[in-house]
């Protein structure tokens, strides 16, 4: 799959990795960005954020919208794309984030590339000794110190800006 975008009107990528998450994950993500800060922001600094909201359409997403979209947590079903623009000394950068909310929970985040790569098929049989399995996600407790959460975290400021914009838009 190749993701193509119009630069001014982000469209929804047809196929996305779909995952069920609870809305508390989204809350968590939003909340952690407003932790107290003791210093000035570093570059890049988000200076503007725009969001487009498209109610799911059959030709653009595989997620069907239930007739009743308001969920108890207050997020409306739909597909949301936000682009955060931020300025760096020699220009402007954009980060765009697409989120699908279904039944009040975030069901997917961001488009992904399609990698035509044979390595997993080629080498799987060679590594029987290694430990593998299916990823099971569990909510990180609000009590967990964020210093103890490692990962390829999505804490890029532009991404955070876009997420916050989406959260505001998705609130019922």
């Amino acid at each position, binding site marked *: 799959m190749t993701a193509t975008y119009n630069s001014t009107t982000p469209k929804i990528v047809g196929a996305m990795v779909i995952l069920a998450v609870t809305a508390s994950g989204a809350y968590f993500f939003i909340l952690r960005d407003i932790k107290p800060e003791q210093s000035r922001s570093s570059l890049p600094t988000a200076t503007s954020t725009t969001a487009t909201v498209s109610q799911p359409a059959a030709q653009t997403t595989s997620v069907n919208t239930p007739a009743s979209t308001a969920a108890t947590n207050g997020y409306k079903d739909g597909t949301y794309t936000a682009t955060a623009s931020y300025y760096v000394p020699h220009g402007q950068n954009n980060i765009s984030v697409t989120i699908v909310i279904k039944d009040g929970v975030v069901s997917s985040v961001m488009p992904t590339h399609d990698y035509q790569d044979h390595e997993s098929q080629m080498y799987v049989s060679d590594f029987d000794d290694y430990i593998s399995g299916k*990823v099971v996600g569990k909510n990180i407790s609000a009590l967990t110190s964020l210093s103890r959460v*490692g990962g390829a975290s999505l804490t890029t400021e532009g991404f955070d800006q876009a997420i916050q914009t989406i959260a505001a838009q998705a609130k019922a």
Partner: protein
Amino acid sequence: MAEWSFKALGTQWWLESPQPLANQAEILAVVRQFEDDYSRFNPSSLLSQLNDKHELLSPPPEMQAMLQYGLDMYSQTGGVFNMSVGAQLEKTGYGRVAPAGARVSENLLQDVQLTSQKITLAPHVRLDFGGFGKGWLVDKIAAMVDGPVIVNGGGDIYVKGPRQSLLIEHPLTAGQAIGSVAVGDESLCSSSRQKRVWRDAKGQEQSHIPGRSNLLSVHVRAESALVADTLGTVFLLVERPKRLELAAQFNAEILEITQDLDFWQTPGFGLKPFRS
């Protein structure tokens, strides 16, 4: 436990220690100096001066050491880890605008000349520390703290002192973790394709890690954040046999998550995965 948080290098940092750190101001000053000196986004940084003028006189010892490390990693990874890949990033619209003619070096050891008096670059080469700068700074901060500390730079962690239980974030779902791992006097760093995505002038989506792989994210345990950060970058660019070879060479352990959300770890990584 005391936690302290600040923003640096475009991401959030957290430090956790048994008692509040007495030298917070000193640490923050070092962080800001590091940003001022080595940011690719700051046109007056030492790095930008080097890239713009192709030479830098009297470079600070730290910058020499970082460049030497980058050259060593270039050699040890057979050219996969290449500090000049920034030119390619800039061409795709990330960061500053690359001058015409800038391109990835095909012989970094020749194109970067390093002495204590002067750094010289070939005219077409631009360098950046994106592949290991954060790991370098994580280690540097940890070294400034007396006693146990957890230094977390946007998800890349060094634990100084006895083993601590860390969570590994779900590669796609914010606010979720996939399991825990106990780490002491060691680092846990991660690389993901999802981390930085932007659109270029033509509206095409770009990711900050070039190349193709079915890996969604890779997580590395190593003796230092510098090594773990570097290997995390490299591992997204090479296939599994090479990953295993490099992991053995650097005494590192690997956890991989594929786009199908399968995980796979070397026995020493020690992830305790959550079960449904």
